[in-house]
């Protein structure tokens, strides 16, 4: 029963002596997946794919992508460090997540491109053509449901027989494993802990995700694109969801699973998880920038005076920016949505945007907190 994936694919033994090309690929992979580059590359990928959607929605593009990925995977599998992390039984679903999310994103994009072209020519969409016909649930629907279930169950059984569910050592509250990771589907949030304190990354932001998801149908007043794939009829909605779901959720789960090792330090896919890898922490609060660097004074003792610049900045961000935008560039949006909807949308959006803003400031100027009041556990 204990048939590991490794025996199927080979590799994973002693360290290999790499040739110059292999070493080059590995070094490049390690370099590219460093969180800053990883995130920037992901943003560029999402924007680029949506912009050049006609090119990327072709069949050969996704085929080539998966062929190259498979080749890369087989190559990488020979590396002991890559092998060690990828063959963990609990990481198999993350690989499935990676493959399915990319495939379905491509599929939806392809249908959107085709539908948009058809609409431009005045033809009905792919769905619209078929929607006129109605078929009986029995047999058309129940049979395809049945076939799906049988195939799926067979797949589940094979998977369950091939890979035994792991069990680690018995629980010991005195021995903390390193790294300690949350369940994989929360690793996107754990990644946010790099940039935000637990009250934001673990409580406030997840709550806003749920509230924001619930609010979507009441904020998106665009009647188009109901029941068929499209991009051009709702470009903002699709792009926003791609960024939110693909970038800040799925890609962070993958980052947290494969590239975060002991002490939540970054490790490239071909890097050994060294317990002693230290990353210098040189992050600076906004208050230090303001009082010490700008005014050349010691920081005031009163926390509210000390943090005044951050407080002013955040009040400006959350309370001044929305009405300002509503009066100027987003005037039309306010008229269409009404004040209540506009404000709810803006606040949810600004909370969301706070994540990339903070990440960018961390990478560029090592910003630690806008407001840092450890006295009250109030750090933003």
């Amino acid at each position: 029963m204990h048939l590991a994936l490794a025996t199927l694919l080979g590799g994973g033994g002693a360290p290999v002596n790499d040739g110059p090309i292999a070493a080059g690929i590995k070094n490049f992979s390690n370099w590219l997946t460093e969180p800053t580059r990883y995130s920037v590359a992901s943003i560029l990928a999402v924007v680029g794919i949506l912009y050049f959607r006609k090119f990327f929605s072709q069949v050969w593009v996704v085929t080539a992508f998966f062929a190259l990925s498979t080749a890369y995977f087989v190559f990488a599998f020979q590396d002991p460090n890559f092998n060690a992390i990828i063959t963990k039984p609990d990481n198999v679903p993350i690989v499935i997540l990676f493959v399915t999310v990319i495939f379905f994103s491509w599929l939806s994009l392809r249908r959107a491109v085709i539908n948009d072209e058809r609409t431009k020519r005045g033809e009905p969409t792919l769905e619209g053509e078929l929607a006129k016909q109605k078929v009986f649930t029995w047999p058309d629907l129940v049979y395809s449901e049945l076939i799906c279930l049988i195939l799926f169950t067979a797949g589940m059984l094979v998977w369950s027989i091939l890979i035994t569910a792991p069990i680690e050592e018995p629980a010991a509250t005195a021995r903390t494993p390193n790294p300690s990771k949350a369940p994989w589907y929360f690793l996107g949030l754990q990644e946010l802990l790099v940039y935000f304190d637990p009250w934001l990354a673990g409580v406030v932001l997840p709550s806003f995700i749920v509230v924001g998801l619930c609010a979507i149908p009441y904020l998106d007043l665009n009647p188009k694109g109901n029941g068929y794939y499209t991009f051009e009829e709702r470009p903002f909605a699709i792009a926003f969801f791609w960024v939110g779901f693909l970038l800040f959720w799925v890609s962070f789960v993958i980052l947290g699973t494969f590239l975060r090792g002991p002490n939540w330090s970054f490790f490239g896919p071909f890097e050994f998880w060294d317990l002693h890898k230290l990353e210098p922490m040189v992050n600076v609060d906004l208050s230090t920038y303001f009082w010490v660097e700008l005014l050349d004074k010691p920081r005031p003792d009163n926390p509210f005076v000390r943090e005044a610049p951050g407080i002013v900045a955040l009040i400006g961000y959350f309370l001044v920016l929305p009405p300002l935008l509503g009066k100027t560039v987003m005037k039309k949006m306010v008229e269409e949505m009404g004040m209540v909807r506009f404000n709810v949308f803006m606040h949810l959006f600004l909370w969301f945007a706070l994540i990339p803003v903070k990440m960018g400031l961390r990478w560029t100027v090592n910003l630690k907190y806008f407001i840092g009041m450890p006295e009250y556990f109030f750090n933003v």
Partner: protein
Amino acid sequence: MTKLFNYIRESQIWKSVFRHGYPDTPRNRTLAVLSNVFLHLHPVKVRRSGIRLSYTWCMGGLTFFLFLILTLTGLLLMFYYRPTADKAYEDIFALREHVPIGVMREMHRWGAHLMVISVWLHMYRVFLTGSYKPPREFNWNVGVILLVLTLLLSFTGYLLPWDQLAVWAITVGTNMARATPFLGHEGPGAALVSFGGIDFIHAGDDVRFGLLAGRFVGEGALLRFYVLHCVGFPLIAATLMAVHFWRVRKDGGISGPL
């Protein structure tokens, strides 16, 4: 052979179960769906566009099917599992050591992982096809709650093997609750919740304590998570699923262009 089938279908027992003939005529196909409590969650007729895999990805259906697989395998696992600190690990370990070709735990674990993925993909598809737009706003919300419940089901189940992975993942996860504003003892504003110099929010009574029934992940947390995982959340999820499917039908079936 045909004679035998006909004999069975003409018998009183068969007819008492199925009140319609073989579903090969429009009338009987309609009755097959209408007279079956499970099938009647479907409408009698569906848009041809709405049942294409390239449109639906089958993710909602798979999620529901996974829920059924998990209920079944979970029920079997419950026979062999005692949710106490000194027995839990032993029982899970014994499942692996003593059961030849045992796949129940595997099905349960891999199925749970997959259900999280299929729920995400289902939501992704529903968003991309704009299927949350009127008249389906409410059902989208039910779906969001079901998504949260799926994560909670998985999260509570994560603890039950009671190994290092389980305990520390739940520790990391629930540590967040410490920082809940006003309600966690390390959250902003918690210090304000005091009266006459007595702090009301401390490590012994904050949100995290309530989740774990203790100051750390111990026996109390195990029992609490077990009950929620096996009874509480599945009941809520099953109820909401019924609402979800019902509303799919009532809001005009699987979405399609109007």
